[in-house]
């Protein structure tokens, strides 16, 4: 089997396909034009192939988001890149009070298809203002959906799905994923397998050997998925605990339905994310699960997140703060008294 493409290539190809098939699509952002092709090279080649629709902008996150809102309002389908998701706060107002709100605040539906791409996450030594996971700050804004890049979900499908909602969306992209390989045909490596239990392909399920029955399930967004399945592999080897890792493409609104059969019988539900503690995505998911599964839950849902801390630059300090594979491993062990 030839090696599968890198995540960055898959995303680049998906953006190209979107631009290619739909003249209404724009891609805007700082330094995204050729030959530079963006800080993380996600847009490489696109400005050459689609001149006039792939535009490098000044350093103006608020205006970039506003321009996207204007394009969407006028019937176009913009994608913007916020170079580091840490800077999404600079366009918080445009997303919160304009783009999302316009969908419904005028008493009739105003379609606002647009995607805000945010490279996020740490483990690259970029320091406190270039390593964060701001996902949680955007939860619960009516008409704003949140998505996360994953090595299991084909981006061509994901981008189409987002655009077709006709509402603004943020796609969070863990920077460490770009250089990883996409996984195909249900195989990750060794005995690690995955499938898509829900039918609509939103939730990927990773397991060792066969999926059920599971001593525990780990719910983890794309950026943390690999760390989660490493933990799962270690839990099997060291403690003979079998588990599943459930990886959503869409973070919010949370789509629990396809998950319920898998999680209902698990001895433990653990929700892991790289964002720092407090008001996390996991807290939202957990609450919904408590409501739905109260009678079946064996123990409290275990949340795993990074420390309540800034993210230091020095790698040895950064590692301590951020969720690693071992953090998840330890959390599961602790909760299951293993």
């Amino acid at each position, binding site marked *: 089997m030839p090696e599968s493409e890198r995540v960055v290539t898959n995303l680049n190809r998906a953006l190209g396909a979107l631009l290619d098939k739909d003249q209404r699509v724009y891609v805007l952002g700082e330094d995204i034009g050729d030959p530079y092709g963006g800080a993380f090279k996600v847009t490489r080649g696109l400005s050459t192939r689609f001149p006039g629709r792939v535009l490098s902008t*000044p350093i103006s996150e608020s*205006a970039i988001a506003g321009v996207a809102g204007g394009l969407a309002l006028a019937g176009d389908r913009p994608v913007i890149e916020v170079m580091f998701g840490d800077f999404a706060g600079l366009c918080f107002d445009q997303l919160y009070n304009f783009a999302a709100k*316009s969908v419904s*605040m*005028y*008493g009739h539906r105003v379609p606002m298809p647009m995607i805000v791409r945010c490279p996020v996450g740490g483990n690259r030594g970029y320091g406190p203002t270039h390593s964060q996971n701001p996902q949680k700050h955007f939860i619960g804004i009516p008409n704003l959906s949140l998505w996360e890049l994953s090595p299991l979900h084909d981006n061509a499908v994901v981008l189409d799905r987002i655009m077709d909602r006709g509402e603004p969306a943020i796609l969070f992209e863990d920077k460490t994923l770009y250089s990883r390989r996409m996984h195909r045909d249900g195989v990750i490596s060794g005995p690690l397998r995955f499938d898509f239990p829900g039918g609509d392909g939103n939730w990927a399920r990773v397991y060792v050997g066969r999926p059920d029955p599971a001593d525990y399930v780990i719910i983890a967004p794309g950026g943390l998925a690999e760390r989660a399945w490493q933990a799962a592999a270690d839990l099997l080897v060291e403690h003979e605990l079998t588990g599943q890792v459930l990886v959503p493409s869409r973070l919010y609104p949370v789509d629990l339905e396809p998950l319920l059969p898998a999680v209902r019988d698990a001895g433990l539900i653990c929700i892991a994310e790289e964002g720092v503690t407090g008001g996390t995505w996991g807290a939202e998911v957990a609450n919904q699960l408590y409501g739905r599964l109260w009678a079946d839950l064996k123990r409290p849902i275990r949340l795993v997140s990074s420390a309540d801390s800034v993210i230091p630059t020095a790698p040895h300090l950064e590692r301590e703060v951020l969720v690693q594979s071992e953090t998840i491993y330890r959390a599961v062990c602790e909760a299951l008294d293993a």
Partner: protein
Amino acid sequence: MSEPVTADLPRAVPAARPADQPGERTAVSGEDLDLLLLIRSFEQALLDLFSEGRLNGTTHSCLGQEHIPVALRPLLGDADHIFSNHRGHGHYLARFGDPAGLLAEIMGREGAVCNGVGGSQHIHRGRYLSTGVQGESMPVGAGVALHHKRSGDGGLAAVFIGDGTFGEGAVYEALNLAQLWQLPLLVVVENNGIAQSTPASVHTAGTIAGRAAAFGVTYHHVDSVDLSEIRSAVAPLVRAVRETPMPAVVEFSTVRLGPHSKGDDTRDSAALAFAQDRDWYPRYRRLLGDRFDHAEGRQQARVADTVRAVAARPPARWDA
């Protein structure tokens, strides 16, 4: 709308600010006069409704600024997008001439243009949009202008903003982009010299003209309240915005006659007298005499009818 009536006006007695005299150079059409007075009557009726306790929430009247959207009306076409702000009733009425739809929106009654969800400051209809967060519309307008530029449809995005809104960074980000990308963005600055309670001297260093110059954006200043004069001065600019395309800033020196919203005017009597002195209304009235009074009577009656009719309607319904 009532029938357009056009008549020549006697030239005014030369005054200290001759450019400010309406009708000097040209006639005031009946349509324009009706629209000016429709807006004035509408805003006055709103303030009355508020003081009678018949409106809730908030509203911002454009008393003193009515001539700006009326003057721009024939220069903006259906293909153009208009971005209004919190002080937007005049902008809406000049575009749609629909006091009932707007009043229903403000009163939350059936027939509301946005089903009562948006209220006074959040209106969307066709290519017209207003919202309540200052400065937000500037980059949005730039985005719409980018759409127009690429489609080559000759349309533009007109964004109305006040002087105080130049406090917002988004305004500058948008001016920079619009000039870099040569977007058909027409920024209409309604400089009434005040933002809520804060005089321009306390909120703006330098000038609006300087702001435009900083980005190399074409700028024009309008001091007149004479519709024809404004139109002939601004029309070539609007054409250039469409055809070049390119952005432009047109700054109107104007006045806010009423409170910022309701009952919150803390200006002293000198400041109020200054504003009243620059109002278009007494000048038009002086020059147009009976024709003015008749037109005003018609519009006041129209608005009164609208208030009665709308107030009798059931609440707006919204299926979220």
